């Protein structure tokens, strides 16, 4: 950039300079994408870190099925499938001629290997529950594989679309954390830890090849640095831009486009349901009525986010709007506290992880709780401390976090999960849901599930986290929403 005025200054070089610019436009086949978090390693099948999928999902690794940009489940490596009458046998027909990036063929054996590895006794897969109902995986011929279930599971195709269920090559497992080998439209080219990951186009891709020749993922965690990097055009795309307050400036700048997508992140005031006084539903209800969601969305997120009344994404067709159950009503909150035996309120802890939705939201919530007499002592934690103290140690009263996994209402059926909600009825309901394939029946069950946790006031349901992407105005084909953690570049290109 700094050479530009110099070039401009030399009139005699104008023609040459124009020529250079022309080749530059022609060569715009690469893209630099910034993300906030760097992956700890590069194996999506052995870690919960969403940052891994943000780089590799669909770009490098593919599963039998996959998420489309609108969240629909579409065929991936499987071109089609048949489901038996009893719903227990899924026969997947694979695309033929698919090769891994190391040149070896991807066939039914690799599918069997990947699924067996994920569901094995000693598997380190972070989402082992996705595969729990698979009883057997059989190779019929090189392009046909049969998955047999122990019981009906209406979610199987959805489960297989997760980044944790991608197909990996047996011989690549040893070095997969540093050298991921998949089947996607991009090949892994290099990783400079603390800085960037490089991908290059896979010329032998089985499907529609990528338009871009190369992609670089850069990792910028600091919101101020993120703003500067986009403004200086050091990066072409920032997926999941961390500072919503800066978006209006990008809106006003013709160099950029802003996509205000939705994510799967239900942002909640997680409540330790086992810790007194939160074991009392009246106290939890008082908490819910003490919170003014709109103030939090406006104050912490500068208006970006959709209010939620239960742990479910509003863009999901099965979503039920239950925000009325926990409308802002401080008087009612005080009355409930008095009823529960805390007329003067009580003291608790509010432990906040680093993202601004938590830090800013926490300050607002603490102020709102103070209005009804609850004194929430804020302590700001780094992620490692948060995982240790809150998520693993369950040593907290309240915390704020966004649950970004898609369709994760099932966590409320896990009594050992960090908010420790233990309701046998809800657990039975989830059990029934998992065994139900009929769509109408499933919708009904999901509505009941959403209502149950809403009326039990398990957590304070705040808002659906937005997923803002800031990009160069000429970049097209980006995902607007984040139905799963992914930055799918296979359809991305530069406008002429």
């Amino acid at each position: 950039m700094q050479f530009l005025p110099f070039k401009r200054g030399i009139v005699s070089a104008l023609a040459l300079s124009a020529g250079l610019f022309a080749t530059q436009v022609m060569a715009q086949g690469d893209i630099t994408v910034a993300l906030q978090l760097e992956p700890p390693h590069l194996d999506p099948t052995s870690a919960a870190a969403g940052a891994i999928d943000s780089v590799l999902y669909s770009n490098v690794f593919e599963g039998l099925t996959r998420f489309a940009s609108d969240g629909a489940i579409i065929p991936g490596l499987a071109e089609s499938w048949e489901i038996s009458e009893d719903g227990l046998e899924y026969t997947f027909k694979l695309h033929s001629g698919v090769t891994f990036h190391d040149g070896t063929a991807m066939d039914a054996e690799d599918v069997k290997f990947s699924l067996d590895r994920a569901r094995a006794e000693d598997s380190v897969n972070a989402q082992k529950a996705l595969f729990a109902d698979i009883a057997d995986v059989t190779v019929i011929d090189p392009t046909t594989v049969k998955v047999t279930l122990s019981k009906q599971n209406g979610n199987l195709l959805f489960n297989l679309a997760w980044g944790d269920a991608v197909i990996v090559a047996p011989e690549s497992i040893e070095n997969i954390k540093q050298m991921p080998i998949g089947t996607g439209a991009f090949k892994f080219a290099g990783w400079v830890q603390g800085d960037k990951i490089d991908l290059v186009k896979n010329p032998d891709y089985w499907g529609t090849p990528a338009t871009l020749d190369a992609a670089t993922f850069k990792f910028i965690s600091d919101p101020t640095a993120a703003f500067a990097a986009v403004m200086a055009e050091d990066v072409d795309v920032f997926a999941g831009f961390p500072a919503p307050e800066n978006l209006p400036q990008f809106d006003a700048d013709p160099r950029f486009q802003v996509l205000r997508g939705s994510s799967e992140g239900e942002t909640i005031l997680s409540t330790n349901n086992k810790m007194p006084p939160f074991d009392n539903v009246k106290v939890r209800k008082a908490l819910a009525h003490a919170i003014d969601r709109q103030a939090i969305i406006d104050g912490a997120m500068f208006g970006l986010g959709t209010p939620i009344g239960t742990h479910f994404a509003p863009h999901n067709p099965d979503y039920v709007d239950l925000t009325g159950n926990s409308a802002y009503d401080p008087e009612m909150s005080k009355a409930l506290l008095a009823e529960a035996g805390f007329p003067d309120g009580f003291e608790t802890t509010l432990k906040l992880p680093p993202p601004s939705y938590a830090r800013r939201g926490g300050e607002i919530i603490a102020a709102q709780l103070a209005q009804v007499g609850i004194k929430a002592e804020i302590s700001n934690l780094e992620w490692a401390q948060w995982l240790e103290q809150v998520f693993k140690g369950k040593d907290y009263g309240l915390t704020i976090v966004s649950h970004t996994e898609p369709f994760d209402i099932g966590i409320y059926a896990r009594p050992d999960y960090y908010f420790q909600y233990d309701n046998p009825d809800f657990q039975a309901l989830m059990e029934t849901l998992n065994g139900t394939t009929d769509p109408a029946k499933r919708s009904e069950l999901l509505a009941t599930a959403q209502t149950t946790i809403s009326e039990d006031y398990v957590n304070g349901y705040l808002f659906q986290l937005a997923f803002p992407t800031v990009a160069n105005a000429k970049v097209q084909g980006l995902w607007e929403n984040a139905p799963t953690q992914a930055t799918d570049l296979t359809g991305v290109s530069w406008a002429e």
Partner: protein
Amino acid sequence: MSRNLILGAMLSSLVVLAALVSFVWTPFDYTAMNIPGKLQTPNATHWLGTDHFGRDMFSMIMVGARTSIAVALVAVGIGMGLGVPLGLAAAARKGSWLDELIMRGNDLVFAFPSLVIAILITAVFGAGAINAIIAIGIFNIPVFARITRGAALSLWEREFIMAARVAGKSATRISFEHILPNVLNLLIVQGTIQFSLGILAEAALSYVGLGAQPPTPSWGRMLADSQTMVSFAPHLALIPGCAIIVTVLGLNLMGDGLRDWLDPRLRVARA
């Protein structure tokens, strides 16, 4: 009295006054949020505007002064309270194992970059004003111990100390009755300088989120919070930034002025 001293004393007392007044009066409740009225620039109602939650900046700066002064004052108090007796003891037993122990201990603490250790302390024991005070206080101990020992050593050679020893006073009594009053002016000057460094350290710790926790306002955290908003609401950063500058400048000028005023040698030279 020098101009420095007067200007420094005026700026410092302005900040102290703001902190004291904040106990009884602030224009608005410093925790009261008004989200629809956020990010106002300075105006008649909100003299210094409002922050990103619509809180009154003027009130926050006043209470922030309280936080800064409280942390720095107690930290300097810890440094003086422990450092001065250590320095006196080391001087009184010059060359003994006690002197060695104290001074090498000081070297050890000095060897670490103070802010890094302060961050370590608050990271291990948890963020908060109390731990920030302890962290900053620990690093004030060797400063005062050294300066006390250095000044005391030369005093121990003087005739009036000799006279006190001949009169049979113990080393402890001599230290407190004769040495301490004579090094006091040095300590006051150093205390002022350390106080301004303490304010900076508090701001730095709060800036990285390890100082006073919200909702207690702190200048450092106000700066950190404003970071992504500088481009469209620069007053959020300028106001706490100026508050820190005024305080530190005031204290440094005052320290300089006090040194000139209190140092007997300089006074003689001037006369």
